[in-house]
């Protein structure tokens, strides 16, 4: 067993630097690496590019980095929940690349699986296709999209073991698996870190080979963005 554990979030974030590109898992506030985001804020790393489906809300998730103007460029599919984001984007303070959600996921998946580029029909005939190679397959037009390149992938899982194997819970899985192994270094924070041998190998979603560092997060707020319930 190759042990991937690090003591804490500080050790897990060794080597991060200004100007780097980070991938961050999560959909809305669901399944985001909360402890790592807090550490990025604490370290005040500057001028970073973030690849993440969303940009958090004003006072949680990546919104915390936005508020401190740490993000130079954001690559996302949907950013509608964040007023400060919209302000920085429209004023030109921050660069934004909007990517169709399936293309975003596949550009991560391609990066981790050694596929430099792929063709997708998503965005053909729209501004997303501008400047991109197009090609017809089976009578349908496609555009070429490239794999992402990132310095770090930051992901969050439900359970993990010392070997870096990961299990996700519910829809908190989202972008996290596709980002594992997509960046040069993948750091996973988990709610529960267990010794090797305690996870049933049949239940592992992401094998430890895709993870370089793993630690148990100190605490999880798991904020709900839209609480919707029905009466009993």
């Amino acid at each position, binding site marked *: 067993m190759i042990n991937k554990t690090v003591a804490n979030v500080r050790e897990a974030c060794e080597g991060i630097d200004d100007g780097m590109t980070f991938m961050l898992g999560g*959909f*809305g*506030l*669901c*399944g985001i690496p909360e402890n790592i985001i807090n550490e990025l804020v604490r370290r005040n790393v500057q001028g970073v590019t973030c690849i993440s*489906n969303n940009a958090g809300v004003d006072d949680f998730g990546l919104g915390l980095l936005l508020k401190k103007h740490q993000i130079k460029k954001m690559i*996302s*599919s*949907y*950013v*509608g*929940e964040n007023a400060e984001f*919209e302000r920085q*984007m*429209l004023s030109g303070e921050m660069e*934004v690349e*909007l990517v*169709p*959600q*399936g*293309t*975003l*996921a*596949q550009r*991560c*998946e391609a990066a981790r699986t050694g596929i430099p580029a792929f063709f*997708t*029909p*998503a*965005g*053909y*005939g*729209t*501004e*997303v296709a501008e400047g991109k190679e197009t090609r017809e397959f089976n009578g349908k037009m496609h555009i070429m999209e490239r794999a992402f390149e990132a310095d770090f992938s930051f992901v969050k899982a*439900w359970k993990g073991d010392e070997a870096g194997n990961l299990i*996700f*819970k*519910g*829809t*908190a*899985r*989202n*972008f*996290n*698996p*596709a980002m594992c192994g997509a960046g040069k270094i993948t750091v996973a924070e988990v709610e529960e870190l267990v010794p090797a041998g305690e996870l049933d190998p049949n239940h592992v*979603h992401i094998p430890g080979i895709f993870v370089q560092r793993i630690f148990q997060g100190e605490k999880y707020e*798991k*904020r*709900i*963005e*839209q*609480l*919707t*319930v*029905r*009466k*009993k």
Partner: protein
Amino acid sequence: MLDKNQIAQRIAKEVKDGYYVNLGIGIPTLVANFVRDDISVEFQSENGILGMGPFPYEGEEDPDLINAGKQTITALPGASFFDSAMSFGMIRGQHVDLTILGAMEVSQNGDIANWKIPGKMVKGMGGAMDLVASAENIIVAMMHTNRAGESKLLKECTLPLTGVACVKKIVSNLAVMEVRDGKFHLLERAPGVSVEEIQQATEGDLVVEGDIPEMKF
């Protein structure tokens, strides 16, 4: 004229037994409330669930279980979870039978615009571009006109496009229409709405053939 719930109710009639269905945010989400309970349908939410159920009971909400609108939901028996790459693999691979989504504008050749108003609103396309580019069967739920009374069913879209030549059917507050051969074809009228009213509210070419029946629910 239909309200939002009635639009959803009419669209629900298009949902057939054995369908996997992706519902967009807004009116499309309401469709789930009106699907007949004697047929088997599974709802997909592109953030990673098949077999999405209703909102949880108070106090039973799980922050790790949400839909693409970030609302807390439940998982029905037979549900499954998966990652975003697999989710859009399902969509791109045309395994989802029906996509229902909203629109700001639709053109008579089936182009759709629903993600950006230059200089005013830029929230992003989310999964909409992937959905409209790949789905075989797309129904748009929308208001026929904007707040100023201007038609949203146009010869050509004025807003940045989400997808080209992809919309097959539209259910608006006034009518059910099919998009075929570069024209809107009127199929049904909302109760109490005349063909003339629908024609007036439609900037694009509208084909009216024979008697147009009122919608039934």
